[in-house]
Structures are given as C-alpha cells and as structure tokens.
C-alpha cells in the first residue's frame, strides 16, 4: 500500500523530468556549439563517503552517467579521511581532481583562495538551468563576486525527529510552535529523563535564531548583525531549554551526538537532518521515530546544509567534468542519487524520497549554512561561549553575542 502511494508520484515525476531533460538538450543545440555527447576523456572525481549505502547510491548514479555518456570515463577516487588536508595538497600541487565535493561550511574559504572555477558563464552558454536549485543550497556556493562556484549535489534542512511511542504514551502531538515545544518539554521531562537532546552548537541554534528574526550578518554579509534583540531573545530561549533541564547536550548523556540519544531512548525529540535516517536504519532499526517540521517561532526558517560538486581552477579536463557535474546535479542523476534514501534532493524538480517530505519542505525556507571566509573562527567563538553559558546554567546571551561579534568583525577585516 505504502510503496504504491509513493510510487505513483515518482513515476509521474520520472516522466516529467524526462521531458525537462529533453528541453535542456534542445536549448543547448540551439544556443551554442557545446554538445555534451561529443565530449570524451577521463574525469578524475573525488569526494568522501559517509557510508556503504552512499557508495551504492553514487555507483548507481555513475552507472546512469556511463549509459548516457559512454565516451566519458569516470575515475572515482574517494578520500577516506581528512578530506580538507588531502585536497590542500592537491590544490598546492596545481593538480586538483576534475570534479570534487566542497562542503558549504568551507566554500567561501575555497572560493576566496581562487581554488574553484566559476560556473555561471558555462551554465548560461551551455544551457544548464540553475533555477531549479533551492536558493538556500545554491547560494552557499556564491562568492562575494556574485558568481556561483559549485552546484549542490543534495541538501539537508533540519527537522524534528521524535520517538513516536514516547509521544503517544504521553498523549501529546508533535509541537508546532515554540510555546508548544516548551510545554512538551515540561511534560516529557520527568524522573531524570529529558525531553530533548539539543546540540549546543551554532549549526542547530542558528535555525532558531532565524526563526526569531535574528541573524549573524546583514543581508550581503558585509557587516555583523548578531547584536540584535531578536538574536539575543532566541539565544536566551534556547539556553532556557538547558537551564530548565528540558534539553541536554548529547555529551551530558555520554553520547557522541543526538542521534545516539534518540536511538537509545534517552530523549523524546531531537533536531537533526536527513543524515539521521541511514544512522537509525543501521544502528537502531527497531526504534520507531518520525519527522515533523521545526516548531515555528515568529516566522518559519530553517538552516540548509549542503555539499557541492565543483570544478577546480586548475582541473585538467573541465569539459568532461562539466558533463558529469550537470548530469549528477541535473534531474536524472539526482533522482538516482537520492532515491536510495541516503540524501535529499537539492532541486525542486526532483521529488522527495518517501518519508523525507518534511525535510525537503524545510529546504524551501532554509538559509545556507555558509557565510564568509574564515567563518570557522566565528563558529568556534559562538560554540565556546555557548558551552560556558550552559556549564554556568545561565541564560544570559551577552557574552555569546559579544564574542561572536568580535570574531565576525575580525574575520571581516582580515
């Protein structure tokens, strides 16, 4: 029954995207002389791999590519650990792979260093429509010059994962607003058990700051905007969840991250992204949980995490890399890559895999988790001040905001 219900829209979408693909090819042959099927050569392609399932899904997408473009050979060379270090060596030697992953968190550092090739001109002259990407994902790879340096290979927004049994036993519905969330926290925090596992880091809390109308930067990322009442209120609200004992950090439970705490049944709700699903499937297959949208603050907002496929400035085989890039981030390749459930689509014209609808919907309101060069220091400043506040059982946002502002000013001026 279940597979039939979700199967039908997928078939419809398959047909639709096939038509879209044809349109794209039509545009290309009319507009320019670039014909992807005439390109040949070898593309050296590098990324990391989080799980075996990911490898299987990627291989399926690469098989699809091989069938469509038999003249191009793909030489896949995944990097097992320390991706940034390995890539730094390749960039320094002026021998980067032709196509590779770039994490949105470091994209601006890599763009500013001139490591990546801009893609806008190619996209417009070769007729690749970037309008289908969710802006919250695509904009993560937009440099300060306004050019795009990578297309998102997939994307994740945050959602609320909850233990269905615990919630129904307590007779409560998944909270939809901040007030309902606090009420649920109060009800579910009993007898040494905590309602939520909360990450104390900026990569979760910023979603709630956005929901309250706060922000880190002004719109064009040229000035700090963290010192606002909206931001402070949101931080206080978040700190209160810790202070009241409704929420605890995973390490306070002895866990490495909130997924483990949910799996072990220590908490009822966590705020994570689609990466939770493969983890739960492999580690805690018997725990019943479901996704709900992030409870809404003053406004709906979410945080988008993504990784791009990018071409290096010094990449040797750029044309073949372009063909692979546009296949994998185009509707056909992305459908194959995401249907196994290891990733969620970054394009609006690829439908959500079954069970991921909530998370994909979050992408529509997502702000990119990607800011300015040197952002890691800002992130560290925020996280360290948060840790200090939680340890002191305080809900005073002053030091957190001040430290973050100092770090932002320093990053902007260096």
């Amino acid at each position: 029954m279940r597979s039939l219900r979700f199967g039908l829209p997928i078939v419809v979408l398959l047909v639709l995207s096939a038509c879209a693909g044809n349109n794209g090819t039509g545009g290309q042959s009319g507009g320019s002389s670039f014909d992807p099927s005439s390109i040949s050569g070898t593309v050296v392609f590098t990324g990391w791999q989080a799980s075996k399932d990911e490898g299987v899904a990627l291989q399926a997408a690469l098989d699809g590519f091989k069938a469509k473009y038999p003249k191009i050979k793909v030489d896949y060379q995944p990097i097992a650990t320390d991706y940034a270090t390995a890539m730094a060596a390749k960039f320094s030697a002026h021998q980067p792979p032709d196509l590779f992953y770039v994490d949105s968190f470091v994209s601006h550092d890599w763009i500013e260093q001139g490591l990546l090739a801009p893609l806008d001109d190619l996209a417009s002259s070769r007729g690749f429509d970037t309008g289908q990407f969710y802006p919250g994902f695509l904009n993560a790879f937009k440099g300060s010059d306004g050019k795009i340096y990578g297309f998102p290979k997939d994307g994740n927004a945050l959602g609320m994962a909850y233990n269905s049994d615990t919630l129904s036993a307590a007779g409560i519905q998944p909270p939809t607003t901040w007030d309902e969330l606090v009420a649920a926290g109060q009800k579910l925090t009993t007898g040494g058990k905590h309602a939520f596992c909360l990450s104390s880091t900026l990569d979760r809390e910023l979603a709630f700051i956005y929901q309250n109308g706060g922000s880190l930067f002004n719109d064009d990322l040229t000035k700090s905007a963290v010192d606002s009442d909206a931001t402070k209120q949101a931080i206080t609200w978040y700190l209160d969840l810790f202070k009241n004992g409704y929420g605890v950090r995973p390490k306070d439970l002895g866990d490495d991250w909130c997924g483990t705490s949910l799996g072990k049944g220590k908490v009822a709700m966590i705020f994570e992204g689609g990466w939770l699903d493969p983890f739960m499937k492999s580690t805690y297959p018997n725990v019943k949980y479901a996704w709900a949208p992030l409870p809404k603050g003053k406004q709906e907002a979410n945080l988008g995490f993504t990784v791009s496929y990018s071409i290096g400035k010094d990449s040797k085989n750029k044309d073949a890399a372009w063909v692979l890039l546009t296949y994998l981030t185009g509707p056909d390749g992305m459908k194959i890559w995401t249907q196994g459930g290891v990733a969620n689509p970054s394009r609006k014209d690829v439908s959500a895999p079954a069970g991921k609808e909530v998370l994909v919907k979050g992408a529509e309101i997502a702000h990119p988790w990607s800011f300015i060069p040197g952002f890691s220091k800002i992130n560290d400043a925020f996280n360290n001040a948060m840790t200090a506040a939680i340890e002191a059982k305080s809900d005073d946002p002053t030091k957190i905001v001040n430290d973050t502002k100092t770090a932002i000013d320093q990053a902007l001026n260096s």
Partner: protein
Amino acid sequence: MAAPAASVPASRRTLGRDRRQEALAGYGLVAVPMLLFLVFQIGSIFFAIYISLWKWGPLGPTGLNPFRGIRNYQTILSDPIFWKAITNILYYAVIWVPLTMAIGLFLAVIVNQKIRGQTFFRASFYFPAIASSAAITTLFIFIMGPEGLFNGVRQALGVNPIFSLFGFPSNYNWLGESRTAMNSIIILNAWTTSGTFMLFYLASLQSISHEVYEAAAIDGANAWQTFWRVTFPLLRPGHYFVATVAVIGALQLFDQAIFVGGSGGEPNNALTTPVLFLYRAAISDFNFGYAAAVGVILLVLIMAATLIQRRLFGQAPSW
C-alpha cells in the same frame, strides 16, 4: 709555500693524505642527510617565515593585496583565543612536566632495583608509550564519560560523597566540562609518557658509577639520603635531557586535544592549544600564511624555553 711542504717527512704526508681522504669520505657521507636536513627542515622554517608575511593559500599569495607584513602577527596577538591557547599550554606544561618527570624518575628508581620480574615491570611501565595516542585517547574518552568506567568505579567504591564535596556529581563528564578537561588530559599524558621518561632516567641511573654509592654507604648514608644527596644531583644531565624533551613535547600538545575536543578545542576552548590553533587556520580556513605565523611564534616560544632550561641545567656535570 712549497718549501715547507717538501720538508715534511714522507710518512706524515701519507698520513695527511689518508686523513684528508677519510675526511672527504666522511663529509661526502654526511652531505646527503645534511642536504635533506637543510632543504626540508631549515629551508621550510625559512619558507614558513617568508609566507607568514603574506595572505597565502594553497595556490600561493591570494587576494588583491596579499602582502601583509607583520599584520598576520598583529591579528594573532590580538586574538583572545590565541592567548587562551597559550595560557592552556603553559598551564599544561607547568603541571604536566614536573608530574611526569617525577613519575618517570620514581618508576626508573624502582625498576633499577635488583628485584624479581624486573623486565616485566620495565615492559609494563613502558607499554602505554607504545600504544597509539589515537587508540589510547579514544579509550580514555570512554573511561571518563558520564557513564564511563571511572564514574562506575567511584560509585562502587562509595567515595562519591568526597567527590560531591568538590562539586562533581556522580555522572560528571570529566572531559566534557571545561574545568576538568585539561586536567584529565594531564593525567592521561602523565600516565602514557612516564614510561618513556622512565627509560631516559634508567639510562642516566645506570651511568652513575658504583663507587659513589659505595662511598656514600661507607659514610653511613641511608637510602633516602643516598637518593637525595647522591643520585638526584648526579642525574643532572638526565634531568636536563628529560626536561627539554618534556617541555618541547608539552608546547606541541595536539593529538589528545583534537581527539577529545575536536578542532574547536571544546569544551569552551579548554583544549585549544597553539598547534591546534595553527591546524585550524591551515586546514579549516586554508589560511597558510596565518598558520605559518602561528608556527613562527611557537618556534620562538620553544627556543626560548629550551635556552632557559639550558641556563638552568645545562652546565657540564662537575664530577
């Protein structure tokens, strides 16, 4: 010029030629590693000093105005996190170096006795030093976690009231709270490194001649006096060597810090060290020039510390 050379006896001339050839062969053999040393060690130090004056990335100078002069250094010195890293590492060095030296010396003196199973004790004290720091730190993270072995043991021993006097609840997260994270690392490293220091001290202990002990015995010194009046002062070269190695190692603390606290030095920068700070700049931000400047500062710091120690311990032994 030629005349005196001609007057040198034939035998001495052959010796001179032999010596020259020997010297040439010696220099020839030394030249290869020396060249590698000059290029890869000394050369890279100078290159690091050079790029520390630039905004420098994987592809070389970056941006419109890449030359930064001393501005990288100014930014570092005005960064509170860098000073936190320096404070952390000084605290670590001040506690960890004497503690580990004391344990190492204690173990060395014990295993230097003629006791049964001497080899077994030497091996087992040294054993933690050969385990990989990644593996041993990972184990330590589990041991010191809220539901870890350490908390379990103190629960079982019933000593929790004493701990709660100091404000440590029964499920305290030793590595996750900023006030105990660094102290826990100190204990971990004192345990793993004392075996190495034991070996160093053992070598020094065995180089002390028996005669001085016999003289002390004849003078009626007891074991305690012998240790403090004879052994300890005569170990001075050993102290110098161990202290120098220890301080250099302490100032370069990195592995345990990054395994426990990640590259962010969590919790609350309690585990941020200068090398971790450098790593962050280089690998997270690809800001090689800035990272090189941190490296240069660290080089100056370590050299200064070593010179000070040389002044304190470094005179030639007086016996």
